[in-house]
Structures are given as structure tokens and as C-alpha cells.
């Protein structure tokens, strides 16, 4: 699978629908019960105007795309840097896209440098960033 990785290659997108139920389950699983995520009346009184998904929920979709493309290399030696630009809200459909920006070799080890973005159904940027995955080592 990794032999097909080349510069410019688009990664298979991940599309997910956000619901308040998923946000609540995420809060239970992670233990992050910040009311901005789960308390609709509290969230309505904040400048955000309503509940928002945990940033790490959107980032999980990015990780799913990377794991799908790079398998265990991502799980064991992945690196990412992400900026949360806008909150994802219940009712949003998020699409994560990514591509291999370049392949670099450092000390006989190849790395795929990828860029990714996650947008909602209106095209608004939710998360953007870069991810790096070790591809192979020529070291003996």
C-alpha cells in the first residue's frame, strides 16, 4: 500500500455527519464534559450561540484518513500539527481532504509530508494542518 504513495497523491477523503448525540457520546468516552459541548442552554448564552463539537472529535476524522492511507505507520510513528479555525456544530457534515505534499528523506529514512483540511457543508474551514508519516528506512 505504501509503495503507491507519491508526491501530489490525494488521500481518500473522510465524510462524517456531526450530531449532538455523537458529541454527547464523545464527552462520555473522553470525560470532557465542558458545557460548551453538551449543555445547549449554557452554550446558547455564550458568544458561540450554541453547542460545538470537541475539536478532538474533528481531529479524529483527520487521523482516520491518515490511518486509512498509511496504516500502522501512522499509528506508531505519525506526527501532526492542527489549527482549529471554526467550531463544528451539530448538523454539520464534515469532509476531511488531504494529499501528500512532498516526500523527504532524512538519514536514509523516507517521510511523507501531508497537508489536510476539514471543511463543513458550507465550505467553511474547521481544521487545517500538516501530518508527517515515516514511510521506510534504508538503514541496515
Amino acid at each position, binding site marked *: 500500500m505504501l509503495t503507491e504513495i507519491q508526491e501530489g497523491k490525494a488521500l481518500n477523503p473522510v465524510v*462524517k455527519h456531526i450530531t449532538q448525540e455523537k458529541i454527547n457520546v*464523545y464527552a462520555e468516552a473522553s470525560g470532557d464534559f465542558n458545557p460548551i459541548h453538551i449543555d445547549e442552554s449554557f452554550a446558547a448564552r455564550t458568544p458561540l450561540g450554541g453547542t460545538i463539537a470537541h475539536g478532538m*472529535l474533528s481531529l*479524529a476524522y483527520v487521523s482516520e484518513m491518515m490511518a486509512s492511507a498509511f496504516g500502522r505507520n501512522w499509528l506508531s510513528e505519525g*506526527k501532526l500539527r*492542527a489549527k482549529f479555525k471554526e467550531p463544528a456544530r451539530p448538523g454539520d457534515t464534515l469532509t476531511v481532504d488531504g494529499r501528500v505534499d512532498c516526500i523527504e528523506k532524512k538519514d536514509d529514512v523516507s517521510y511523507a509530508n501531508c497537508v489536510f483540511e476539514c471543511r463543513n457543508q458550507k465550505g467553511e474551514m474547521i481544521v487545517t494542518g500538516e501530518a508527517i508519516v515515516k514511510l521506510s528506512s534504508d538503514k541496515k
Partner: protein
Amino acid sequence: MPDRAISYEELTPGYKFPSTTFELSASFVSKYLKAVDSESDGFVPPLAITACAIAATTKSVPLPRDTTAIHASQELEFFKMVPIGTTIECRIGVLQKISRGKMSMLILELEVFDKDKEKVQSGKATIALPT
């Protein structure tokens, strides 16, 4: 146990919160996978581990009153795959504390270790605190 004694005002770069431990049980992973609408390949998804670390952060960090914490950015590095059932230890420290007008930013360093004290992942979280 979270350190409730320290206030946000007292937090300074270099401060280390007491470490917290989590068991990445099958039921936890199952609930996490349901939340993120995904499937398992026998290992704990790395972002599930980060979710525990972030939750530990939000419980440990004393926020100013009437503030809503917003996760502004995240850096992560994974070092090994983690089998389901592993107990992890999360260590969190303050890297930077920035105040700009009505916005405060807290930059936190996260490190996660397994029971053999091997590093599983590390990262940096930027939390924005509009007041």
C-alpha cells in the same frame, strides 16, 4: 488527583500538574469508536489516547471564572501502537501563558506513557480563554 489548590493566576510556565492514569479498556475504546463513527483494528486509536490526555487537562487546569475554554491548536507525535487494555499515565505541564487584551492563551505540554514508562505520545495544546 487533579490539583484544585492552584488558581489560574498562579499558573506559571514550567508548572507540572499531578499525573493522571487511565485504563484504555475495551468498553472505553468501544464508546470512543461509536462517538467518532469508526472501527478498531485491535489497537487503541491514537486520538482516543489524546482525548484522555485533553480531558485530564480540562479537569486539572483551573480556568478563570466565567470563561469558556476553546481548543485553538494541537500538535501530536505518536511513538508506538497501544493495545486495548493498556493503562496510561498522562503528564501535563504549562509551557506558556499569554495575555492579549481580552484573550488569554495557555500552551500546555502533554506526555503519555504506558505501564513500562515508555512514551506513547507527546503533544502541545493551545487553549484560548476569551474573557
